[in-house]
């Protein structure tokens, strides 16, 4: 199914930037916050005119892809069945300063996106957009072929879903480096040299390909053993 309508849960810094990019790429965009439409209406109208301010259920019902752009400590406030059967992009990270202490938020033995997938059982989760700062996402989206174009890592367990999301990321203004394993999401989580970095395709691919040689990669390997 071709993606024509983009839904964004979370009308904060990242949600609004992604809404702007999606509008610029020609998609129909819906966006919601944790509360009523009224609370975000003026913000959406002023910052991303053209996007439709909505509530979660409306956003999900009317979108071909749904982006989770809310704090990681909040996703369990969403009913897991809401995303049943949906293609979902997980743009979330563990950020202790707002999420609190990791052990209370996350099982330390797995990656955050695997936990998100386990919670939203009926959805197909793909992880991307998470490892670049929101103002870089806004300022560094560029047309295909631009020599300065930056790249994003896209990964998930469902092959077709990953490919679909990779094409979507490309349409939003970024090259992609693609893996087909959700657990590899760890490569862009906090602590990774890729988290907060803004890299071109060759640079991103190089670090991904040699991830086990990075300090963070070594730490992760130690943790697994």
């Amino acid at each position, binding site marked *: 199914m071709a993606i024509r309508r983009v839904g964004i849960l979370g*009308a*904060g810094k990242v949600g609004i930037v992604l809404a702007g990019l999606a509008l610029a790429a020609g998609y129909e965009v819906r966006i919601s916050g944790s509360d009523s439409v009224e609370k975000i209406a003026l*913000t959406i109208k002023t910052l991303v005119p053209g996007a439709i301010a909505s509530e979660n259920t409306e956003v999900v019902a009317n979108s071909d892809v749904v982006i989770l752009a809310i704090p990681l400590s909040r996703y369990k406030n969403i009913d897991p069945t809401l995303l049943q059967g949906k293609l979902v992009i997980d743009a979330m990270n563990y950020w*202790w*300063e707002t999420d609190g202490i990791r052990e209370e938020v996350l099982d330390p033995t797995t990656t955050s996106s695997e936990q998100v997938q386990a919670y939203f059982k009926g959805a197909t989760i793909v992880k991307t957009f998470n490892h670049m700062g929101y*103002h870089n996402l806004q*300022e560094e989206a560029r047309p295909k072929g631009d020599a300065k174009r930056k790249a994003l890592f896209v990964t998930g367990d469902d092959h077709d879903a990953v490919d679909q999301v990779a094409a979507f990321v490309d349409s939003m203004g970024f090259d992609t480096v693609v893996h087909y394993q959700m657990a590899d999401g760890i490569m862009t989580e906090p602590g990774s040299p890729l988290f*907060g970095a803004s890299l071109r395709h060759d640079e991103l691919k190089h670090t991904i390909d040699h991830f086990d040689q990075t300090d963070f990669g070594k730490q992760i390997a130690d943790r697994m053993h």
Partner: protein
Amino acid sequence: MVDIEHLEFGLETFGDIVANEDGSLKTAAESIRQIVREGQMADELGLSVMGVGEHHRPDYSVSSPETVLAAIASVTKNIKLATAVTVLSSDDPVRVYERFATLDALSNGRAQVMLGRGSFTESFPLFGYDLTDYDDLFNEKLALYDQLRTEKPVTWSGKFRAALQDQEVYPKTEKGALETYIGIGGSPESIIRAVKFGYKVIIAIIGGQADRFKPYIDLYHAAAEQLGKPEFPIAVHSHGFIADDEDEAIEVAFKNIKANFDRIGLTRGWAPMSREQFDGETKVGSFYVGNPETVAQRMARTIDLLDLGRFDIVYGAGNQTAAQRERMIELYGTKVVPRVKEILAEKAATK
């Protein structure tokens, strides 16, 4: 259009530890005394505001900014004395009021409260607060502060502090209200909150192009209109470093700002700053670095673009020497500020 005559120029420091000429570090106590000296310089140079941050970490000297500001008050005449920022979420609003009202008395009405959520969170565990209450803490304490600011008896109850029953808080100020700003980052919700309280707004632009804040400033005005709240000229603060020589300025800033950002990034798992990122920030982003002409041109552009009423440069990031810091302040006061006004006047004439 920018009101050049009333445009304010401030300096802010987060209280970074000062370096000796040989690269070793001064003590926190020496660094604090250096800030008092710099506050005095800023006043002599006719700058509008001196802001001092609050941190509770080994890499910063100031945890009690009002005390430092009180010392500056006693050696200055005109400059406003601000915190940059007071981490209200982990403070007691009653104490905040009392400390600032005292500072206001000592300085003949020059105290300026800047409230924020802060970009650091080490004060939460230190004072027994839970990070997961991040939003609730700020909202509740801001509401209490807002009542205290009326300087009338307060009746209040909430989750995070003992209730108050018809309670007076002292000392009262001579003007009847403390000048108050809310410091915000990139979140639209914070802008709306500031509008609701009717406070002035200072935006921390610490990364990326100033241009991206233009819609946020539109949002501020649109929200004020919709809610029937007062509108004030917007203030911005950003990092900067000025030296006589352009290349020297860039090298000193790269070393120090990078060290500072990387150290903070480490605690958040954020990758170190690359040279490309730094260069982007100094050329078109939010670091105001270079010789006086370069910095003046870039500041004037931002002030004009965002229609600002005030611009504060955050100085001293990383471990700079006293000579570097003082020379920067001198250049800011004597060269950059007059030049910014000149550029803006030329722009206004051609509009």
